[in-house]
């Protein structure tokens, strides 16, 4: 049997591939690339209370976003929250992934479902849960802490950064567990056994064998969590309220309340650029450091 019959090429392979990709390509260029380009353009337009949007190319919005202390404070808060959430999820998620990985079936499957499942439950519903738990003086958490005698007066969680950080950590923890879990799957158990047989105690095995191999997972999880935390919308909007603004809620306000679209576009584009720079930069660092782990 000749290979010509097997492949029956009527068109060249690249032509077929492009033809198959054409519908997806058309949609992604038309509905992702073009709107993004239009948004970048929009961020240079002028806007006035009475004249509306004026299509002239000026730097007014960018100057305002980059120099006004109000925006600086808001972006600092956004990245401070994102950094804290990243740290907390790493400290909680990495050990949890390790513990999950050491469980036997059926517990492993059950708890994996319990920990990762919330990822697919609506963010609004999960954040509502935190709003109920925090809920001012009557909130469940404050009641429990006061009953236990740990605190005298109720702690403020609603409308504070603390509350936003706690709720966001809950929302994003599964991503960290998932990333570390994926890295742990690649570890050869025999290496741990070898270390133990050579006389290493449990802590030494954890520190010298498991942690270095899990680290790429922790770092890639950290990048994901940071990017999602910095651009989170529903959780800061519900827990933080109208006054504790972050980048995403500010863009929302400019677009749907103030109607200053060019300024909102500048905020959104700046957030996108900042995240792309941070993500690509960290990825490059990690890949250089752990080149062999990504092969």
């Amino acid at each position, binding site marked *: 049997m000749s290979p010509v019959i097997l492949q029956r090429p009527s068109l060249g392979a690249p032509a*077929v591939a492009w033809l198959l990709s054409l519908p997806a390509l058309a949609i992604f260029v038309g509905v992702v690339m073009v709107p*993004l380009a*239009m948004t970048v353009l929009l961020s240079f337009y002028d806007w006035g209370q009475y004249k509306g949007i004026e299509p002239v190319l000026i730097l007014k919005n960018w100057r305002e976003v980059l120099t006004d202390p109000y925006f600086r404070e808001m972006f600092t808060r956004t990245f401070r929250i994102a950094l804290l959430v990243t740290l907390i999820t790493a400290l909680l998620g990495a050990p949890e992934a390790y513990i999950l990985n050491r469980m036997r079936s059926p517990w492993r499957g059950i708890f994996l479902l319990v920990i*990762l499942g919330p990822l697919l439950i609506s963010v609004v519903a999960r954040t509502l849960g935190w709003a*109920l738990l925090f809920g001012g003086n009557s909130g469940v958490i404050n009641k429990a802490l006061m009953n236990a005698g740990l605190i005298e007066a109720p702690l403020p969680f609603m409308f504070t950064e603390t509350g936003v950080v706690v709720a966001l950590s809950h929302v994003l923890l599964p991503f960290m567990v998932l990333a570390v879990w994926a890295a742990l799957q690649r570890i050869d158990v025999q290496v741990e056994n070898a270390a133990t047989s050579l006389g290493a105690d449990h802590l030494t095995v954890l520190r010298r064998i498991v942690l270095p191999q899990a680290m790429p997972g922790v770092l890639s999880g950290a990048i994901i969590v940071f990017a999602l935390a910095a*651009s989170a*919308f529903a959780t800061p909007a519900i827990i933080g309220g109208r006054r504790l603004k972050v980048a995403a809620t500010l863009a929302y306000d400019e*677009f*749907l309340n103030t109607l200053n679209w060019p300024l909102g576009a500048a905020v959104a584009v700046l957030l996108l650029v900042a995240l792309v720079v941070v993500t690509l930069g960290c990825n490059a660092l990690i890949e250089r450091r752990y080149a062999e782990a990504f092969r």
Partner: protein
Amino acid sequence: MSRNGPLAIAFHTIIVAFMLAPIIVVCLVAFTPEGYLSLPSREFSLRWFRAIARYPEFVSAFWTSLWLGALSSALALLVAVPAALAIARYRFRGRDVLAGLFLSPLMIPHVVLGVAFLRFFTQIGLGGGFAGLLLAHLVIVCPFALRLTLASATGMDRAIEQAAISLGASDWAVFRRITLPLIAPGMVSGWALAFIQSFDEVTMTVFVAAPGIETLPVRMFLHIQDNIDPLVTSVSACVIAVTVVGLICLDRLYGLDRLLVGQGQR
């Protein structure tokens, strides 16, 4: 393999409690017999579940979400399957760029996509309509459909197709009788994951959804912004119930960790 020590078990218990607490609280409060937010202490009542029917905006938002999720996921499969086959089996110039482009919505913050879609749809006259909403959701769920289809298309044994061709099957017959059944599990899981993503999406949708075609999460979000009452907890409890059922099915069908690993790329 050694077992987890008591310290590890304690840590694990705290994490599980942390993950479940807000979800359980929502479901408990939904059953309150009182007219205000409270944990049901005397009895469980369905009062607030019955109340949902009196709020047509929630009911219509639910149907919008359902249709939007089903349609956008189906359309996503329609464009993702050929693209996945192209990427899985041909080595051509621009292949990596294409793959990167198709997965890009995972890496762009949804708030940025929301802003971009709002501007775009208003400019081209699709603002505030279901068509715009559908296109927007198609774009954000497509990467999920693509990734799972791609995974099953890559793992496929090409020899079976070649056997069919050598036995005289036409291109269409090979696709329908061999390729399609082999990638079907990936397509079904891809559709389901895409559906859940669409059903839950709020950040991007809140920019695009006009009054009248709000999705359920958007309706819930806007309601919570005004006031938190037992009604929104009973609606949330329903959403949680739907998701949990879907989740367990997906776990059985595909394996949750396999489904979600790589979600990471966003």
